[in-house]
């Protein structure tokens, strides 16, 4: 497998097996994106049926993870890929784990949404949560796009956004605590909202992981646990 150029994207021709597994990962990604979108909508629109759909749909996410994992094991065993191809398989195995976790978090959000649907909506109609939710959805979407395009530069850009997500998460947490202190009757719902935003923040972290795997796939550099600015320096040094 060649690295055609050291620009921020790599054009390559995978063999059919790899290409087919990549497609399956992206299909799983698309389904998880859909789950997340439904979960946030269910909360904001007080739609308990939609929330339930997300909970039931999580089974499919788990099934997909198992199936793709098996396929990867098969490829490793029968084809003994090397170098770049091996990086791709390893990255895929990690990616589906993170996708499955995102699915779990979306499941949690859906369950809470179904429960909260019966209660009265708060004054701001979950506006802050909706905003955070859409932000995280965009992060996940961009991360998967970067995976599809093998675009390390885009992956880097998306990874940076996690900082914004974390900041918003902190802000909403503070807000919820304020509500709880002001009116003890709000405690139940405020706690639920805090669970939801925690789940969203976790999804943001998983999306950042996806970006790190893309960078690993493209540049062969393990950038987990590395500060984002150092990652950029590394990649720039390689002539991207």
């Amino acid at each position, binding site marked *: 497998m060649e690295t055609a150029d050291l620009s921020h*994207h790599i*054009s390559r021709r995978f063999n059919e097996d790899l*290409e087919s597994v*990549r*497609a399956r990962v*992206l*299909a799983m*990604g*698309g*389904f998880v*994106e*859909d789950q997340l979108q439904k979960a946030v909508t269910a909360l904001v629109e007080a739609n308990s049926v939609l929330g339930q*759909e997300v909970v*039931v749909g999580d089974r499919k996410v788990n099934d997909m993870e198992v199936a793709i994992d098996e396929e990867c094991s098969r490829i490793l065993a029968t084809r003994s890929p090397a170098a770049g191809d091996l990086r791709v398989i390893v990255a895929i195995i990690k990616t589906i784990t993170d996708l499955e976790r995102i699915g779990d978090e979306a499941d949690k959000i859906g369950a809470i949404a179904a429960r909260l649907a019966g209660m009265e909506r708060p004054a701001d109609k979950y506006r802050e949560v909706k905003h955070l939710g*859409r932000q995280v*959805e*965009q992060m996940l*979407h961009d991360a*998967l*796009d970067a995976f*599809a*395009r093998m*675009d390390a530069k885009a992956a880097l850009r998306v990874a940076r956004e996690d900082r914004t997500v974390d900041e918003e998460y902190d802000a909403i947490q503070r807000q919820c605590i304020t509500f709880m202190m002001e009116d003890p009757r709000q405690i139940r719902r405020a706690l639920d909202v805090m669970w939801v935003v925690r789940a969203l923040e976790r999804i943001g972290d998983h999306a950042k992981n996806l970006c790190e795997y893309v960078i690993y796939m493209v540049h062969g550099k393990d950038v987990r646990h590395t500060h984002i600015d150092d990652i950029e320096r590394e990649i720039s040094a390689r002539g991207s």
Partner: protein
Amino acid sequence: MNSAWFYVIARVALTLGLAALGGWIFGGIGWWLAAVGGGYLAYHLINLYRLNRWLRNRALVEPPNVGGIWGEVIAQIVRLDRRKRFHKRRFIRVFRELRRSAAAMPDGVIMLTAAREIQWFNRTARRLLELKPKLDIGLRIDNLIRVPEFLRYLEEGKFESSVVVPVHAEGGTMLSLQIVPYGEGGQFLFARDVTRQAQVEAMRRDFVANASHELRTPLTVIMGYLDTLAEDPGLDDAWQAPLAEMRRQAERMNSILGDLLELSRLEAAGSTAGDEPVDVGGLLSLLRKEALAAAARPREIVLKLESDAQLRGTASELESAFANLIQNAVRYTPDNGRIEIRWWIDAAGGHVAVSDNGIGIAPEHLPRITERFYRVDPGRSRATGGSGLGLSIVRHALQRHGAELQIVSEEGKGSTFTCQFPPERVLAKPQRAAG
């Protein structure tokens, strides 16, 4: 045979002749012939070398100036080259025209290979789908558009219809996507922005749902008071009949509102039903019992369960669909008539049929009968009840399960309504419901 070869032959003959003459005059004809032959060979080898060198650098150097047969060959090659360049230019021109016209189309167009890789896309497609020029060439389209509904559409391959998918963008853009196969395995993907239409649809649905909801409240109040009045012992007898009629009509209004809400819900719910196992046999038995308990009903209501297979879907919607079909059968069959409810599976999938020997439907009504509020005989339907929405509800519920409604009817003889479920919705082994 053209003149060049004539000269070649003439020259060879002349040279050999001279060599022979020299040999005859000076002796050692063999040496003479060998020398001449060698010289001739050298001449051709040199020209062959020049030809080869020129062929390799055709674009950069002029062809060697050689006469005779070599000149002929070179001239032919030059002619071939020129023709090829001409055809190439023409092809490029036609191709550019094609791309320009595709670029001018208001719809997004993407050209795909048989493996669904992007070969080319126009500006509208780039805008609608946020594609990156150059970067995305060669990528599979289903890696970039990952929406489950689109992936299902690609898998099912029913490309006569399009699919509407939400694309990822703030503002909820909805795109209508359609695959059009062409040539040998190539495919076009057409994308159109239908956000406005989707919004208008959503507004209409919300309006109907809200209006129905709003109407229900005052209606409930009215029905409440009518009930109270009817039970009042001091009520004048003359009022009993009118009161009963008012209650009936209020009931009817309530049922119409209920059906409108159900229809709105089905339309808003999206394109596919759920995945839970539905016990068809049990459901049909229950509905049959309810039908038997009705006030006015045909004498015979028979249930034929020819399979214990189940269906995969949403129980409440299937119940709604079957209930509506059975209620219609009860309504339009005389008291001495017969209704048969049948459930069976075969290679084509699962089938639920409701047959009656009632009044039947004339052929001219069949194409329109599932339209909302369509009445075959307005007078009769209003008297026997019914909202006019029943078959619309059936059709929508079936659509969400990938199923079709088949109607066979003869006026005066009876009708058979069959719900045909595709094999992928049939669960051959009965499964316990989850949870």
